[in-house]
């Protein structure tokens, strides 16, 4: 009952703070200092219990006329006040910065790295960090004076595109647990979510046409070798090269065939079967980009009006995947 009330109060304060603080709704870019006006503080449940205890102590002192009881009551109250200041100081003047966010494929978790720097001389203990919509924070860290701590917050992804992380709450109850101080932070960095690669997609359209899964080339044109991949037939193994590596290595190599007369691999959105919807097409293209990259085959991508010339390498892959992730999105920039 009381817990629900506190929850209500907290919720109200949360909403109200969004209304009256001009900064609360905005994104925080760059390094953010948790200044005095960004720290909120309220008694915790234990703190409310302590308030009740103080009341009982006071009434006992008055009723029994205990002079020393007044001393105990006021000393305990003062300790709680000192604790309030200490809890505030345990959170205030920390500096927050967003670390790098690596792109992920839809269905994976984005890792938001949150760097908490303590440039003050005061050691910080028990600083909890998590997204505001989580009931119980899951990550806790200490930050020594002059040190930095990194908290990794993960968000599951479902769809491709830009993902803006939810608001982050930092909170602490240190040192005595009678108060909870917290501060909100809206990191500006967003994560790029690539489309989820299609499972069991047809093989790469090496002939240049779409859907030609048997185009794994004639057996005559060996373009090179590549690492063995599950599914390669015995016929495809490059026995001579394997023998050269020696039996100890245990590594298998497959022959790489050049099909389609050496034409560049073109991954064309428009050339995919009509029955696939756009997300399915993007998923298949994503899978092909990954496949082509893993086989070091140069590939070109045609995605509506966007064209990438044939190339390979991490930068090319990233550009292609980015285009796939943002295809058809208004905020494609």
């Amino acid at each position, binding site marked *: 009952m009381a817990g629900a009330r506190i929850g209500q109060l907290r919720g109200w304060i949360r909403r109200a703070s969004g209304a009256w603080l001009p900064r609360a709704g905005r994104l925080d870019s760059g390094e953010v200092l948790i200044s005095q006006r960004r720290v909120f503080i309220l008694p915790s449940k234990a703190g409310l219990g302590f308030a009740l205890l103080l009341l009982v102590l006071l009434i*006992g002192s008055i009723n*029994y*006329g205990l*002079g020393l009881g007044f001393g105990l009551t006021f*000393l305990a109250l*003062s300790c709680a006040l000192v604790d309030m200041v200490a809890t505030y100081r345990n959170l205030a003047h920390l500096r927050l910065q967003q670390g790098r966010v690596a792109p992920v494929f839809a269905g994976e978790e984005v890792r938001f790295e949150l760097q908490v720097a303590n440039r003050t001389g005061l050691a910080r203990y028990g600083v909890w960090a998590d997204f505001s919509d989580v009931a119980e924070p899951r990550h806790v860290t200490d930050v020594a004076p002059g040190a930095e701590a990194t908290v990794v917050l993960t968000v599951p992804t479902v769809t491709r595109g830009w993902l803006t992380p939810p608001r982050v709450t930092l909170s602490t109850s240190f040192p*005595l647990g009678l108060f909870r101080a917290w501060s909100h932070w809206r990191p500006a960095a967003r994560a790029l979510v690539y489309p989820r690669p299609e499972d069991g997609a047809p093989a790469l359209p090496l002939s240049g046409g779409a859907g030609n899964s048997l185009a794994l080339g004639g057996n005559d044109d060996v373009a090179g070798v590549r690492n063995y991949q599950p599914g390669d037939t015995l016929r495809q193994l490059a026995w001579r090269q394997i023998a050269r590596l020696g039996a100890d290595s245990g590594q298998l190599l497959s022959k790489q065939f050049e099909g389609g007369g050496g034409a560049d691999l073109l991954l064309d959105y428009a050339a995919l079967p009509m029955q696939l919807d756009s997300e399915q097409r993007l998923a298949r293209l994503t899978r092909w980009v990954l496949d082509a990259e893993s086989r070091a085959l140069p590939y070109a991508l045609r995605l509506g009006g966007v064209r990438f010339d044939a190339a390979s390498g991490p930068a090319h892959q990233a550009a292609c995947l980015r285009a796939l992730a943002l295809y058809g999105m208004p905020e494609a920039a």
Partner: protein
Amino acid sequence: MTAAKPPAPGALSRLARLPRDKADTLLLLASALLVLAPHALHLPLWVSLLCGATLAWRAAITLRGKRMPRAIVLLPIAVAAMAGIQFSYDTLLGKDAGVAMLVLLVTFKMLEMHARRDLFVVVFLCFFLALTNFFYTQGIGTALLMLVSIWMLLATQLSFQFTGSVPPLRARLGMAARTLAFAAPVAIVMFVVFPRIHGPLWSMPGGPGAGMTGLSDDMAPGQMSSLALSEEPVFRVQFFGPAPDKADLYWRGPVLGAFDGLTWTRVPEQARKLHMSVGAPALDYEVTLEPSSSRWVFALELPRARPDVPGYRVRETPSLELAADKPLATRVRYRATSHTAYTLERGAVLPDAERWLLLPYGFNPRALAEGRALRGLSAPAQRVQAVLDKFAGERFSYTLEPPRLGRDTVDEFVYGTQAGFCEHYASAFVFLMRAAGVPARVVTGYQGGEINPLDGFMTVRQSDAHAWAEVWLAGLGWIRIDPTAAVAPERVQRGLGASVSRPPPFGIEALRGVNPFSAGGNAWLAQLRNGVNAMNNGWNQWVLNYTPERQRGVLQGLLQNLFGWQLAVVLMATAGVWLLSKFLRARRGIHPVDALYSTLCKRLGQLGLVRAQDEGPSAYAARVGGAPHLAPQSRAAALEFLRRYSSWRYAPPSADPRLTATLKSLLSQVR
């Protein structure tokens, strides 16, 4: 290969290497023990033993890593303990039984701690337990113990709050000590200014004073011997002016007029107008009365007016007793004015004389006969003198350990044992006076008091309890006669310690100087005792008995001092510090030009040129100049801005009043 054996770890280092949760639990046990220990002084032995055993059990569980006992084991023990409380105290309610229950609750809670919440519960209960200890003692030592207890409790609670690395115990104790150090001044201010009211808010079972000794309302000779030995202070007095002679220090208590042969009791009286006149200079003084279960308010004979005792209504009886409307269970302070020279009922006749002449039928025939014989002396004053002479002349002796008396106490004392203390003499004297036809009564109270030269307060102790007599003589009124003084004048002049030859402590002759009653026996010891007394008195006056009245006085004094020139100085100093800090803060604050710079950086950042943390304006400008995707006009404006900013920032301050405006207009061109 034989591995070198590590040195056997000492107990302390083993403790230091305990896993964290175990170390925390042991710390909690130690703090709880600190709070529980003083209660052993008043708890039944079995409760203390049970608590000790339970805590030891808990420590063993922690150290050995065993599981906590299950509820099915604990429940019967708890029920048995409750039954034990009921058996020991005859109740489960009330103050003492409640404290015992609380002690057991805290102890058993230790065995039933599972969540973090339980820790808070135990620590909070420990705070409450520390308060209940004040029911029994509130001395300076108790206060120091309280401070140490709070310190340990804070350190314990702190220890449970760490989530990652945990500093060593010493560092945690230091943190707790700092918390206390910051809290103490705030607590002192609250203690002084928090509005005090006279309690209780509602009556609580067994308030303080229950079971405390005090002067009783009746007197059966022989009863007072234990009282006389108690060194407990009854009240303290501060005289505004020179203290009167010790022989004048008669603190009047209950007046006993009815005798049934064994016991003297009070006589119920109708309120009536008394004839009283006073002479000689008045004595002004303030009495701080310790809490007790009695209702008597003590004042020197004779008080001119009823003193005002805060929180109580005081009534004056026709025998000039001062009685409060309820037991004086709190420490009270009151002012009184008395005259040691006075006359009372100085008329030709005493209106209620017969009530002061009544004697029980069939008791003490010899004394009755001797008293009747005294009627041969025509002047009542001569009869008084005759009895006093008899006490002084015969082999009467003063002793605190008189032989037991049988049925006819007066006869056996006067004609048999001839050894006793004030009660015996007062009782025998009044009996003889009444037999001789002189109205007489027994007055009880305290006689004497000890001045502490360090703070000038006089302490009156239970050992100063005394009984004397009053006789009424026509034309003179009620006159105080102290028959004990006839036998042992030093009892009245110097106090009990001088008049009684006591055996040396532990029967060792050399220790006679340590006799607590002989103030002159050992000079430095007496000085030490005075110092301790003065400290205790200050403690009582300022901490334990900080009443609403005293608070008003303190605050008024503070305000009067503050509203003088000191206040002006303090206010001006505060204002000066405030202005200075504001000035300093303004200098530390952001200059408007810097603010514009940061706006520019933000805007360029939105255009894809985020300034690195360590990038100065020139380096930034170089990068901005090389950025291909910036509109040429924007780039030119930004570069010009950065150039001007750089020269303002790093060149000696040039007073260009238009700089801000220029920068603003440049800024507006960066899009």
